[in-house]
């Protein structure tokens, strides 16, 4: 009976649903495939964004242009530095604050928590924050990427609730052996929190890698621009001048501007695409923790 019931269920619904899910996958993957194909497409086909599945004429020229562009490579460097330093700073700072906050014996804990909670309900917003950054000397400075992004309430709460699940006895025994609070945090608590550390580090890294908005607002000098802000300028403001001039000089009209754009987009996305299969589990886990707490 159960067997027959299951057989019968492979009907119109299952087929339709499967087709629908495959369609979702297609619409999700095709845009990235489109960029990849067109970044290798050296022919005039890439000038117009023709629907295609495979490059009409293979070429690495657009990558040669992208990798030879000193501005783009400098942006790559700034973004890498920002991601490494920014993620480290965020994880360490937020985790240390959260560990202190997770202790019930912490004097003033209620006041501290209120101070932290109010930041969720009100905020100054764009203009006051901009003025503050200017007054702090962070305008047009690399540190504008790092310091304002060192802490978020959300991640602090995730850390805090995770630290609470670590058995008290583990910490007590270290204390008996004469470890300080910092010793307990760095030698006992953090090594036992690798999953949550990885999750939050990944979220922070993805933010730092993908963010272009901070660069638009706070950075004026060309040599401080992160990669994504540069891409924003290339795509939205069509500020291709330098790369295009270089490409024209090198390859003539053979190399269309669009394929250079697509190659730059690939350069900015490949790190995410490469790590994605390995990190996506952690990312989902992070949302689950957040969802349960929120």
């Amino acid at each position: 009976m159960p067997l027959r019931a299951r057989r019968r269920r492979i009907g119109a619904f299952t087929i339709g649903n499967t087709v629908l899910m495959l369609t979702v996958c297609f619409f999700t993957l095709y845009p990235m495939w489109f960029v990849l194909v067109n970044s290798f497409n050296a022919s005039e086909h890439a000038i117009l964004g023709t629907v295609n599945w495979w490059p009409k004429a293979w070429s690495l020229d657009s990558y040669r242009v992208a990798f030879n562009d000193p501005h783009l490579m400098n942006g790559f460097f700034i973004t890498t530095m920002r991601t490494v330093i920014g993620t480290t700073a965020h994880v360490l700072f937020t985790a240390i604050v959260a560990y202190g906050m997770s202790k019930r014996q912490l004097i003033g804990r209620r006041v501290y928590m209120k101070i932290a909670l109010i930041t969720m309900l009100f905020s100054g917003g764009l203009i006051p924050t901009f003025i503050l950054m200017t007054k702090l000397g962070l305008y047009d400075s690399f540190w504008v990427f790092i310091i304002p992004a060192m802490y978020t309430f959300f991640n602090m709460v995730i850390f805090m609730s995770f630290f609470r699940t670590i058995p008290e006895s583990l910490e007590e025994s270290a204390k008996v052996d004469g470890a300080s609070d910092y010793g307990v945090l760095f030698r006992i608590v953090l090594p036992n929190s690798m999953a949550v550390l990885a999750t939050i580090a990944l979220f922070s890294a993805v933010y730092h890698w993908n963010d272009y908005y901070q660069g638009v607002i706070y950075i004026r000098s060309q040599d401080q621009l992160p990669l994504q802000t540069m891409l924003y300028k290339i795509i939205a403001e069509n500020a291709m001048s330098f790369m295009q001039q270089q490409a024209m000089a090198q390859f003539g009209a053979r190399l269309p501007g669009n394929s250079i754009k697509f190659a730059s987009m690939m350069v900015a996305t490949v790190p995410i695409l490469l790590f994605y299969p390995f990190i996506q589990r952690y990312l989902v886990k992070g949302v689950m923790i957040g969802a349960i707490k929120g």
Partner: protein
Amino acid sequence: MDRTRQPVLRRMRRQWQLQSMVIPGIFWMLIFCYLPMFWLIIGFMDYSIAKPMLQSPFVGLKHFEAFASDDRFWRSIRNTLGMSAIKLGLGFVIPILFALLLNEIRSLRFKRSVQTISYLPHFIAWTIFGGIALNWLGEGGVVNQVMIGLGLQEREILYNSDPVYFWWIVFFTDVLKETGWSAIIYIAAIAGIDPALYEAAELDGAGRWQRMWHITVQSIRPTIAILFILAVSGMLGSNFEQIFMLQNNMNLRMAESLDLYIYNMGLVSGRHSFSTAVLFARSIVALGLLLLANYTSRRLTGDSIF
């Protein structure tokens, strides 16, 4: 009993290590969260960034009156509400539907693969995703080719610059990028439902759609309610990274959301006090919306955030 009588400072000194972990965080919040809140009062001043704040003259509600009589402000309100309404009215159910349909997939491997693929675009930067969208929607782009190829339109349409299409472009790109990611919470909620409920329903003769509606949807109702409250209270906000990427001079008429208006007035035109007045008014209305949505949801469904 004795310990509580000791002065607070002395007790705090005894746990200086713990305090030294938390206090830098509190300082950070005071500087990066509370100072900007304090700076909102420049909305009541004629502030100049070159001078110390308190030397700027108080001008009362001048800037509030100024934006209230600015047509461009009301246009930005219309744009924000329009885009939010589409997102809320049509977009809110899409991740729920996706989660429900994905849940009906029997093969675990297929289900996992679809899920993994579906949240990939969330991790692609808006510069890339928006760049692809602009390319597809432009002259000779994929959208025009497909539409002409299918005979749905005769000539090329400049979707990327015609203001009429902007709200829908925002909606569709948001759906394409975020559906899978937004569905995670619902998928997690569905995973937590007791399988016995389904078995019982099956024995009672409930069909697939009845089980979906009476068990799955009813079980995840609290999650839906909470996300709906958050969505309503965020109606005056917009996805700045998305809109900033997709807007241009030609579609600004429909593209300028409140966020973009504040940015254009405050940072592009340098009217700091004016923009701050708008920000101030918005955060008060947003708080009101949050409380209202919360109250309504509690009244109607019994589920609320606080």
